[in-house]
């Protein structure tokens, strides 16, 4: 998709005025957030699982080249083909070449964020293939020609009414002439339409939640079973996966699976967890005859060598966005690309550049909720701060902000001067605001007071209080 992260501020303001989106986001708090909390309380080992998950993934990243080569060897041994791609363009070319070589006409997709990342659907359609998304949420968005607004629940912003209209518009020619209004009827209609696509498809493309170095397997986690039909019915299967998806063993994957669904949707385990290894065997009753994996770097090796390395532990559960107060008010589209919320605010500037996505690391209050719930303990606030530092060092923030920051730094490094300047300002504000309890307007601070009050200072500065407390201790 064409990114529009540079319009973050306008996007966010528009999102705040979308009543349907606001209702959906409120529901998220009741659903995913409450569900995760229930899982957390029911599993005393949750914290130790998080620690271990971090250790396993750090160990894997420290040895990433070796584990990828082990994985590659097992894929080839099991009869599969492995293709490496540095960039989204290379990945798209590989996928298109495989489809052409297979003389395919129709392609079905199982939901995959890396597929979105490399823009595979548009590329396949431009190359003349008929592409159908099979995850219900992604299918709805394909009809609506919209990008996902959540990495786990992509169509979270769509209302039942909108879906009814979309289905009537697109399914009428297929014989579904009644506008369905019940949820179950909508799901059923999509099931019937997509069943035909599954049975007819030449190529199935899925992502991977994990890749297993021990066996050369890819793991797919779904509730719908669409990933399984996509992996089973077409004669060619293509797995698109990023290099940070590999883990050493089946046991390592088992540990991560205990965290994934709990953190994502508040389930102990999803309805389907599937390990797929190579094409169908000679004696197998069904399954694809060709199995390809496209391994994609797309700036991940660059992150590996920087302070952003912890981001490569991400298992794409979406807990960070579910718990983010900013995401919770503006939803995913405002972030302007496919990865929203805290994880997206780290990934998007790396993948698209700070020029495009410079607003995102700043759209964060550093409240730390994301880090608290992250199943693999990614220090998201620290990573966002480090992107802000990069912006400052690369002179990508506004010159006014740079001057103000330099001035503030200069003052802050001189405690006496700092006190001399802050004390009178504080005591003036304190006296002015005592009666009112707060300020509704403030010169030079309209950015703050336009949408909220500035509380009245309570009569003393931190430095003064600190000194008093220290004296008291002695």
């Amino acid at each position, binding site marked *: 998709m064409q990114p529009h992260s540079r319009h973050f501020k306008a996007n966010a303001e528009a999102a705040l005025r979308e009543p349907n989106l606001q209702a959906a986001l409120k529901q998220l708090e009741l659903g995913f957030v409450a569900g995760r909390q229930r899982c957390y309380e029911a599993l005393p080992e949750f914290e130790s699982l998080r620690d271990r998950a971090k250790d396993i993934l750090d160990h894997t990243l420290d040895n990433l080249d070796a584990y990828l080569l082990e994985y590659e060897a097992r894929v080839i041994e099991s009869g599969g083909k492995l293709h490496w791609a540095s960039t989204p363009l290379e990945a798209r070319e590989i996928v298109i070449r495989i489809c052409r070589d297979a003389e395919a006409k129709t392609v079905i997709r199982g939901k995959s964020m890396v597929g979105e990342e490399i823009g595979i659907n548009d590329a396949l359609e431009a190359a003349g293939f008929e592409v159908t998304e099979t995850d219900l949420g992604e299918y*709805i968005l394909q009809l609506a020609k919209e990008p996902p607004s959540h990495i786990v629940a992509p*169509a979270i912003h*769509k209302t039942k009414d909108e879906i009814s209209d979309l289905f009537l518009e697109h399914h009428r020619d297929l014989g579904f002439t009644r506008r369905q209004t019940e949820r179950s009827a909508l*799901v059923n209609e999509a099931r019937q339409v997509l069943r035909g696509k599954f049975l007819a498809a030449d190529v199935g493309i899925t992502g991977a939640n994990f890749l297993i170095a021990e066996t050369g397997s890819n793991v797919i986690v779904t509730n719908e079973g669409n990933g399984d039909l996509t992996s089973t019915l077409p004669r060619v299967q293509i797995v698109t996966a990023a290099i940070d998806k590999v883990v050493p*063993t089946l046991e390592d994957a088992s540990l991560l699976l205990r965290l994934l669904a709990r953190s994502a949707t508040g389930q102990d385990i999803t309805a389907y967890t599937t390990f797929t290894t190579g094409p169908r065997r000679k004696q197998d*009753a069904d399954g694809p005859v060709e199995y390809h994996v496209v391994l994609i770097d797309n700036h991940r*090796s660059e992150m590996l060598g920087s302070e952003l390395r912890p981001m490569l532990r991400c298992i794409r559960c979406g807990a960070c966005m579910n718990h983010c107060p900013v995401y919770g008010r503006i939803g995913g589209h405002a972030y302007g690309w496919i990865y929203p919320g805290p994880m997206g605010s780290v990934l998007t500037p790396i993948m698209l550049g700070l020029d495009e996505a410079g607003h995102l690391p700043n759209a964060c209050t550093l409240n730390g909720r994301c880090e608290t719930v992250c199943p693999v303990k990614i220090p998201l606030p620290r990573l966002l701060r480090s992107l802000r530092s990069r912006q400052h060092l690369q002179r990508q923030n506004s010159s006014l902000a740079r001057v103000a920051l330099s001035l503030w730094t200069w003052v802050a490094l001189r405690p006496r001067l700092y006190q001399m300047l802050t004390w009178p300002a504080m005591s003036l504000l304190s006296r002015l605001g005592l009666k009112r309890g707060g300020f509704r307007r403030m010169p030079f601070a309209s950015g703050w007071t336009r949408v909220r009050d500035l509380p009245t200072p309570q009569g003393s500065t931190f430095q003064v209080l600190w000194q008093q407390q220290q004296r008291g201790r002695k």
Partner: protein
Amino acid sequence: MSAAREQVLARIRSALGRGELGKAQLAELRERIARHPRQIEPAFSEPPQQRFRQKLEAAEASFVALDTLAEVAAEVERYLDASAAPKRLVTSGDELLRALEWPESIELRVWPAKGDDKVSLTAAHCGIAETGSLLLVSGEQNPTSLNFLPDYHIVVLRADQLLLRMEDAWDSLRASFTQMPRTVNFISGPSKTADVEQTVEYGAHGPRYLHVILVG
């Protein structure tokens, strides 16, 4: 695309500030893979069969425990009657199922499944108590499509195949197969989606109903 392969590997190594790993280090990693150490396995106090059943039922699967295999056919018929489902089954060629004797009222066909088959009957490789999951593996007699295409999926599992955790299933697979089967499905309930207004609906793409028969 071997150029991309070399580039990606070179970038990874340069990011890690080292060259290719030495023989000893590689041997250590391969040893870790060969040893596949178990990680943290959460404790649970319920008897395995009770937990298995509770987890499955919480995921809207139905469950029945029988004493002997001889009762399976009658149970299948009872279930199909109660569900008003057609008495036409597509089954896998699993040994366990081949041994069953069927009444004439039930029509049986051995795989593969077609898009319009309504009921399938398969046997599980094992069950997992921790999560209430069935493990089904693909193979000569076990097409994966049986697990996903029909509306009703009936799975038979022997009680001695009920294991505690996913890690036990890995050990069982390693003991039973020299190579990972092409497809290993952990099935923990019927197909569902919450993609329409975050409300769960069953029967998204896979089976609308999952019926588990535990024998022994």
